[in-house]
């Protein structure tokens, strides 16, 4: 059993960092009062987040649940937190639509913490577990995640 396989962790952690960068750009545009740029960057950020959620929810989590026989544990909480972040993103979208950048920045502050405490759980606990349990299967899982095409949330 390969203890040092980090394939899935590496792949998904990189996506987290990518979303972090997007987030910083969005926030900076809002702080600068540039609504148009903020709208553009936010759209990209929201889409990147949604796509990442879909890769996990449609490929990684089901595989993990089948392999471990556990559908009520970590993946259930992760799905719940994805939902919370979707709602926070929707709130931000609403504030942006009304041109209320102050409200937007207040919401983005909340999202950042929500997002990062979720990332900590995934990166420190769930992904290493995935790499351990799905080791032989990691390449296939990653390929399946890459094949997920972004679509609107169900």
């Amino acid at each position, binding site marked *: 059993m390969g203890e040092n396989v980090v394939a899935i962790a590496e792949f998904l952690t990189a996506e987290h960092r990518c979303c*972090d*960068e997007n*987030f*910083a750009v969005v*926030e*900076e545009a*809002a*702080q600068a009062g540039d609504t148009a740029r903020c709208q553009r960057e936010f759209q990209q950020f929201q889409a990147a987040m949604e796509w990442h959620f879909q890769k996990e929810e449609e490929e990684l989590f089901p595989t993990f649940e089948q392999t*471990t*026989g*556990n559908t009520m*544990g*970590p993946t259930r*909480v*992760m799905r*719940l937190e994805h939902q*919370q972040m979707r709602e926070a993103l929707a*709130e931000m979208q609403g504030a942006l639509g009304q041109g209320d950048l*102050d*409200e937007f*920045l*207040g*919401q983005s*502050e*909340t999202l*950042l*913490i*929500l997002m*990062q*405490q979720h*990332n*900590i*759980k995934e990166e*420190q*606990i*769930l992904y*290493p*577990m995935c790499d351990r*349990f799905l080791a032989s299967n990691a390449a296939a899982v990653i390929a399946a995640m890459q094949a997920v095409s972004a679509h609107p949330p169900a």
Partner: protein
Amino acid sequence: MIPSAGLSLEQAPPFSVPLRFFLTAPWFLVLAALLMLWQGPGIFASRWLPATLALTHLLTLGFMAQVMLGALMQMLPVVVGVVVPRPRLIAALIHILLTLGTLALALAFLASSPFGFQIAFGLLGVAFGVALLAIHVALWRAPVANGTVIAMRWALLALLVTVSLGLLLAGFFGWGWRVSVVIATDLHAVWGLIGWVVLLVAGVAYQVVPMFQITPPYPPQFVRGFAALVGGGLALWSVCRVEQWSTAMRVTGTVLAVGLAVFAATTGRLLGQRRRKIGDPTLSYWRVSMASLAVTALLWLSSRLIPTWAQAPQTDLLLGILLIFGFAVAVINGMLCKIVPFLAWFHLQAQLLGRARIPNMKHLLPDAAIRRQGWAYLAAFLLLLAAAVDPAIFTYPAALALGVTGAWLGVNLAGVGQIYHRLLQSLPAEAKSA
């Protein structure tokens, strides 16, 4: 074997679990300020005076330990993936015993009362006993031993040493136990401030700095080595201190000081590389904290080279203020201003579920309020440093600034708690039970 079966990445414990600690802690800063006002400049004559020791413990136990234990009960499920058992009961027990124990200890110092030390011994002994047990159980069950978990294990070991030595000293004052008081006090202070506080802050920083400031991660070689270096260094230093091997003490002390400076510099460098461009009050607190830690290390190193500094009582006082009020209180104050509004929002969201509009974090605790309280903190820090050097002039202004920043923090946080309770009460009864 599927260990994940026993693992729940459960959401946070009830809000009351950490909140009771967070709302109490700031008022110990106010108590510390009142003690300074009452005692006057004499309190800065030496670190060994009873009133100075009472002041120190109002800060370390009343403010620091209070928040740190509350925050650990909140953080462990997130970072480690393990829930502290019976959170409400354990939190209430630790909180009450720690609060009363801190007051008893401060009064015991001030009244030189053996009976007071006996009471403090009992209250604090049970409080830390329960806390150490609950947190140890959680940490050793951690499914993944990452850098944070390793640093926290060392930190808890250091806390165990600190508490044991503290109880031993309370036994000396309370029952006349035979203890080498000066050596035990030195070890108690160093294990508490360097072992427990620095390692806990480092363990938290490994996660919090890259995530919330959006910086590169800490270098893995640093994360791997730092906790062991500090823990091992402290153990060696302690042996040298007990055996009075002064050259060896100097060498291990130097290694420790350089280690702390490297941690401060590494964190400072990461903060300089942050991708998050917007201003953020906690960033300033991290900077003050790391600068204080670096200055602590430099002051200690230079005092070894300049014998008159090493013998001056002000040097020890300055080191204490830099570590306690500069390094630890700053980072804790910054964290409180984020975690309390976030947790209020988080629990409101979970309980209101769209039935009422939830104010965002910046409505719960506005940036302007955080910034103004931050200036009061900075004034208190600088005035305390000045008071250590020239107590006659600066003791009273320092005490006032300390009282202001403590009360302000207390009011800011209590305000968040009030909005939280008001919003929950505004719900119709049937919605609450849903």
